[in-house]
Every structure is written in structure tokens, then in C-alpha cells.
């Protein structure tokens, strides 16, 4: 199976056997899974480059490439917009491997002959591929040194980095979006900030928000720097307000203001409220999106109320029962609510003894309370026992465990 690196630089002859030029690039359609070679770049001895359609070439049994007609009579190939120039745009560049969710460098490309045409099959990202480019593979293997080859099917390659215009996505964006946000985040964290921003921009706001949430705060800020205010606002609106507040809190004040101004007014208000609390306190880590019901309705009515509010809330663990002045009276878990007698009053089935934390208490205390009482969420109140927000268990875990495993800027200089 021929490799692209072996084809590059090969002489192309005319019918009489004279060398017309050298093969300097190979063109394939970018949007096909296993594309056939459409054309090649031919560089003549005087430095001129011509695009020759594959149909105008003949490959003999001993791998000699020649033109079927004289060069002047050969039609010039017109490249389509999705065409990829393998040598210029793919070879030696970084690509995204979806299955491994890693960013790898193309060492070589593997072609196969099918019915007289050449088809691009896979990408060699292994060290043997490197050695082959250096002409060292055969001598080293004779010495007994065999390294495992690693090829990735071309079909699994999702994106190719190409030039200052950024990441060129080979297949429709839905494919990348089907990955779990943690995996997308893994890919993005291996790209530099510039191209990572490109990938984020290609996702819909909700997916982008989930992906962004996987990063460490400093990388979140860096990623958002690559977007304009509207795009950033769209993504932040999809995030839980406490996460959005964390990111905005780490940014420069004027940028944060600009993004807040571009956000939906109600979302912005929630976020601004959270920004008002000092970091590392219960107020600083809580979210102000939660579900409440009044104490004097029936369970059936309460379920209906919950249903109406649930769409706006992140996760639903507990339903808080509050009085008319927002004072916290009791709590029900979702399971308890569903299993309760529909005609019973909420006041009768709820828990009256609640664990709460004051909004000014340090975050470590919050985490300790959640751990001690095995809670999924802890309500945050002010001194009047008014419900201001809740801290969910995932935020508590972040306090207890270092953020070491979260996606960080990949280098030393941060």
C-alpha cells in the first residue's frame, strides 16, 4: 500500500518517457469518508505548478507515473471548496482523533489501490511512520527494533488544522458534538487557545457550556477570550449561574461587564447577584436556581408547580418549601414528593428540621456539612432564614478534592 510520503517527489513522465515534472501534492475531496484521489499537483522544472486530474494520469505496473496526453492538452483541475491538499494541509499537521480523543500529528498517509484509483484509507501517527519518513524504518527493523504501528482510519478523523484560518472540520459538526463534553474538553485542551476557541464556536451554546464547565477556571477564561461578547453571552446563559459567576469573576471587569450586558436580562441578574458574594464563601459557590413550593398546597399541586419550574433549573434533588417572604420552612426530596399521597398537604409530609448554612460561612464548612449529613444539596440562607441559594454536591466535591484533574492549560508557563 503506497504511502503519500513515498509518492511525493516522484517524477511524472510524458508519453515519450521524458520527465515533465514532479508530483508535489495530492488532492482528495474533504467531505468523503474514504476519498479517492481526484488530482495531483505537478511542479515542472521551471517551478510552475499545475493541477492535473487523476484521470489524466497512468500508473504502470512498476509504479511509473505518466501523463496520458501532452501537458498542454491536459485539462487543468479546478479544486472544489471542500478539497484537501494532503501535503500542504494534512501531512505533518495536527488532527483530532475522535476515538482516542487526542490531538495527534500526521506522520504519513496511507493509500490503497481500488479499481485503478487511489483511495485515502488511514493516517499514520506512529513513531514507525516518523522513521519511515527519515528512511530509517527498514534498517532499524533489520536490527530487530520494532515499534508498534498506529494508524487511525481516515473516516475517524474529524478535523484538520489548516493555516491561520483555523480548524477545518472535515465532517458535519454534529459528529464532534455527539461526544461527551468531558471528551470534547479533552480535545480542546490539547489544542492551543486559538483553535480551541474555533472548536467551541462550532458547538451549539448548550454543548459549549457543558464543555466549558469541564475546564479549570483559568482555561475557561482563556477560551472565552477567543469569542466575542454575544457568543460568550450565549454560552454563559446556558451554564448554571454559579458556574457562570465563577468564570466572570475571574475575568477583567470591563470584559465581564460587556458579556453581562449582552446576556438575557434575567439570567444576567441571577449571575450579578452571585457575583456580589465573596469567593470561597457559601454565597460565592451557591447557585440561585432552585425549586420552591408553598407549604399549603397539596402534593399533586406541588408536583405540577415543580414541573413548571424544573425546566429552568440545573439538577433537581430537593424541593424547598418556602413561606411568602422566602423564608425556608422545610424540604422534600424528589422521591418523597412522588411517593407521597397526592391529596396530602405539603406541610404534613415535608421535613421540618433542616440543615442550612449561612451565606457568609466559608466554603469548607459547606463541604463538611454536605459530607456529614450525606446531602445532595445544602440550602443557603441569610440571618432571617430566607432561602438565597443552594450548594450542590458536585461543587462540594470540588472544594474537598483539588482541581488537579480538571483540564488545565497544557504547558508550564501559566
Amino acid at each position: 500500500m503506497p504511502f503519500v510520503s513515498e509518492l511525493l517527489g516522484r517524477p511524472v513522465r510524458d508519453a515519450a518517457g521524458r520527465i515533465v515534472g514532479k508530483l508535489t501534492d495530492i488532492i482528495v475531496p474533504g467531505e468523503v469518508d474514504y476519498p479517492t484521489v481526484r488530482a495531483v499537483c505537478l511542479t515542472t522544472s521551471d517551478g510552475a505548478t499545475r493541477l492535473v486530474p487523476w484521470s489524466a494520469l497512468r500508473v504502470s505496473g512498476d509504479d511509473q507515473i505518466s501523463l496520458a496526453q501532452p501537458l498542454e492538452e491536459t485539462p487543468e483541475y479546478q479544486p472544489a471548496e471542500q478539497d484537501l491538499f494532503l501535503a500542504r494541509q494534512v501531512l505533518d499537521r495536527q488532527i483530532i482523533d475522535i476515538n482516542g480523543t487526542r490531538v495527534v500529528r500526521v506522520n504519513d498517509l496511507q493509500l490503497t489501490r481500488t479499481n485503478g484509483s487511489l483511495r485515502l484509507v488511514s493516517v499514520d501517527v506512529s513513531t514507525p511512520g516518523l522513521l519511515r519518513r527519515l528512511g530509517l524504518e527498514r534498517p532499524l527493523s533489520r536490527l530487530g527494533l520494532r515499534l508498534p504501528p498506529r494508524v487511525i482510519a481516515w473516516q475517524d478523523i474529524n478535523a484538520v488544522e489548516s493555516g491561520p484560518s483555523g480548524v477545518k472540520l472535515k465532517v458535519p459538526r454534529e459528529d464532534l458534538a455527539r461526544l461527551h463534553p468531558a471528551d470534547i474538553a479533552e480535545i480542546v485542551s490539547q489544542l492551543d487557545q486559538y483553535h480551541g476557541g474555533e472548536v467551541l464556536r462550532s458547538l451549539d451554546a448548550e454543548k459549549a457550556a457543558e464543555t466549558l464547565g469541564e475546564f479549570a477556571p483559568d482555561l475557561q477564561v482563556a477560551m472565552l477570550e477567543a469569542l466575542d461578547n454575544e457568543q460568550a453571552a450565549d454560552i454563559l446563559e446556558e451554564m448554571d449561574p454559579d458556574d457562570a459567576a465563577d468564570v466572570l469573576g475571574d475575568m477583567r471587569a470591563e470584559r465581564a461587564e460587556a458579556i453581562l450586558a449582552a446576556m438575557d436580562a434575567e439570567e444576567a441578574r441571577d449571575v450579578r447577584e452571585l457575583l456580589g458574594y465573596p469567593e470561597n464563601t457559601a454565597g460565592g459557590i451557591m447557585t440561585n436556581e432552585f425549586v420552591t413550593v408553598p407549604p399549603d398546597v397539596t402534593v399533586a399541586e406541588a408536583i405540577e408547580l415543580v414541573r413548571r419550574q424544573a425546566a429552568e433549573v440545573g439538577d433537581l434533588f430537593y424541593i424547598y418549601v418556602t413561606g411568602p417572604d422566602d423564608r425556608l420552612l422545610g424540604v422534600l426530596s424528589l422521591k418523597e414528593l412522588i411517593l407521597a399521597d397526592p391529596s396530602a398537604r405539603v406541610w404534613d409530609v415535608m421535613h421540618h428540621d433542616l440543615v442550612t448554612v449561612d451565606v457568609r460561612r466559608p466554603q469548607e464548612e459547606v463541604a463538611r456539612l454536605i459530607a456529614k449529613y450525606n446531602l445532595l444539596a445544602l440550602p443557603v440562607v441569610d440571618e432571617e432564614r430566607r432561602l438565597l441559594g443552594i450548594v450542590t454536591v458536585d461543587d462540594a466535591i470540588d472544594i474537598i478534592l483539588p482541581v488537579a484533574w480538571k483540564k488545565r492549560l497544557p504547558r508550564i508557563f501559566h
Partner: protein
Amino acid sequence: MLKLLRLRLGFALGIVGPGLIAAMADNDAGGITTFSVAGATFGYQLVWVLVLLTVSLAITQEIGARTGAVTGKGLAALIRENYGVRTTLYAMLALLLANQATTVSEFAGVAASLEIFGVPRLVSVPIAAAAVWLLVTRGTYKLVERVFLLFSLFYLAYVASGVLVAPPWGEVLRSFVLPSGELSPDYLLMVVAVIGTTITPWGQFFVQAYVVDKGVTPEEYPVTRLEVLASALITDLISLFIIVTTAATLHVHGIRIEEARDAARALAPLAGPAAQGLFAIGLLNASLLAASIVPLSSAYAVCEAFGWEAGVNRSFREAPVFNGLYTATVAVGALLVLLPGLPLVGVILLAQTINGILLPIILIFALQLARRPEIMGRYATGRLQHALAWITAAGTISASLLLVIVTLVGLVLGSGG
């Protein structure tokens, strides 16, 4: 209006702070030693070289920073993408060799500095190597980096000393513009060493990688450019004062520098009897800082070029080449310094000379890449700057060639150095 100005200043300072690391790390053991010896041996005859080099340093660092901001890629990646695997291999070999030499010189600096306090090198060097390796791989490096930077205030000692010793400023200023010197192997060796310690192969990779990691966009770049130029200026200003101080204290009395404690005497006008200790601490600090950065720089560059996993928080199994390369560079650097009877000052100078000879290889890649419109778009290097950069490269090459020729001629004619 005032608020806008204050915001702008704050923004600029936020980026400038960490950038000083690059400037300070540039004045490593090699820098201190080279400029001390230059001043002691040749007086002010190398100042004109330094002046020209400052312009060159500013130009080449700016090219590296701009390329990083526009492409978002490191120099090694760009070489790989545009020149292919084989050429990349040669470039990486050159870088590895130069960085290994630099690492050796840093540990030589550690040994020399602690010998002033009477600590034998067999003790100081292994401990330093282990400490540097642990600090970097355990990730506490960042905190320690701040401590290093603080100790870098040490360089002000040279400025103070230079002022106190009251050198003939007229002569100093004249030496800025009047080239002097001889066509002797000694002088040319000094020239190549001065070049190699100012514009380093690793420095070229470092500035670009640093800008990429900071995520500087082309729009934000003008601030970074100021920082890069300021860093170059500060670095060479310190180098100038090292030359002035040693010239005024040592050269005038005909004192040559055989070991580090001789160089320490240049600080006597400022510190008197404490000059030795002050110098030792400063040299130790400079050596440790660079010993942390330089081996990392080559490991990252090589892995970036060949697509291997890299990262200080990756284990040996996750990133075998990266960790192996880094560890090997540190280990070999330390081991070579421990060779019995090694003249530390001589080794440091040799390392800078090696850097100077290998520099054109890396420079030419950097210059050519920054000129290409398909890579840099409208930010490609302008004709004047490109020409000046090429003059720098040509100057470096000629100095190295002259050195080789004159040395060979001297050997052939039987006359010593």
C-alpha cells in the same frame, strides 16, 4: 479617560510581570560568566558587540513573539509543518546539543557559586540537579519561580557597583560606537560567546512558546511586543553593567578571571568583603532558574515537533519521551560538570560558544517562517526588519567562521592561542 489609562496600564503590567522571567533567565550562569570575563580580559572592547546584539535580540525576539501570537503554534511545530520530518530532525538535534551545553554551564555555575562557600561540587551539583528535577516535575516550580525572580534583584548590584566604581564614562560611551578588538582566537571566541549567551537557540523557542501559552491574539500583540522589547533592553543593560564593572575593577589591574571568586571581586566597590557571598548567591540563583527552564524547553520542543505526549504533570508512562528527554538533559548536564578537574569558567564559556555556533541554524528557520504570508498573513515580517534579522544571522555566522579560521591558522602556524 484616567480610568481607561489605569486599566490599560494594569492590563499591560499583568502581562509584563511574568515576561520578566524570560529576561532574567537570559542572564544565567553563562551570561554572568561571559560578560565578566569579557570585561576583565578585554575591557570595553566588546561593548560595541553588545550594542549591536541588543538591536538583534530585540528583532529576533519580536519575530518569535509575533509568530507565536499569529499562528498559535510553537517554533518546533512550524518547522515540522513547513520543512518536513528530516529537516526537523536536524533542527532538533541542534537545539538539543545547544541546550545540553547550556545545562552543563548552569550546573557549572551552581558548582562555582557554592565553591565560594567551600561546598565541594560533588555535593552541590547532584543536590541541585535533584532539587531542580523535583521542583519542576512536582509542579511546585511556579511558586519557586517567583522566589527566583525576587532574587534576581541581585542584578541591581552590578548596576550599583558600576556606578560606585566611577568608570570613565566617556570611554564607555565611545566604546558603544567605535568597534575595537583584535583578530585573535581569544577575542573572536569572546565575540561568539557573547553572541551565544545573548541570543540563544532556546530563547528563540522559549519566547514563541511563552506567547502561545499566554494565548496572546494578534490584536493584543502590540502590548506583548513592548514587553519583549523592554525585556531585551533590560537584559542587555544588565550585561553592559557587568562588563563595565569588571572592566573597571579587574581589567585596569590586569586581573584575569580564572575562577568564579575572581569575578566576584567586581562587586567589591558595592559590597566590600561581602562581595564574594553576594556574587555567589546571585550566580546560584541565576543558574538554578535557567537549569529549571532550559531542559524543559528542549523536551517540549522535541515532543511538539514529533507528536509525542508532553507535560510536566504527565507520568513517565504517559509521556516517556518527554520525561526521558528532560531527565536525561538534567542528568547529563550534572554528570559532565562532575568530571574531575573540570575548569568551570572555561566550560561555561565553551557552552556559550557552542550556542553561538548553532544559533544561525535556528535563527534562519525562525526568520524564514515569519516572512511567509501563507503562515503569517498580513503580519509577515516587513522587508527592513527581515533584512536586519538576516544581517544578524550573517554576522553570527561570520563570527563563528572567523573564529574557526583564525584558530586553525593559529594551530597550523604553530603559534598558540
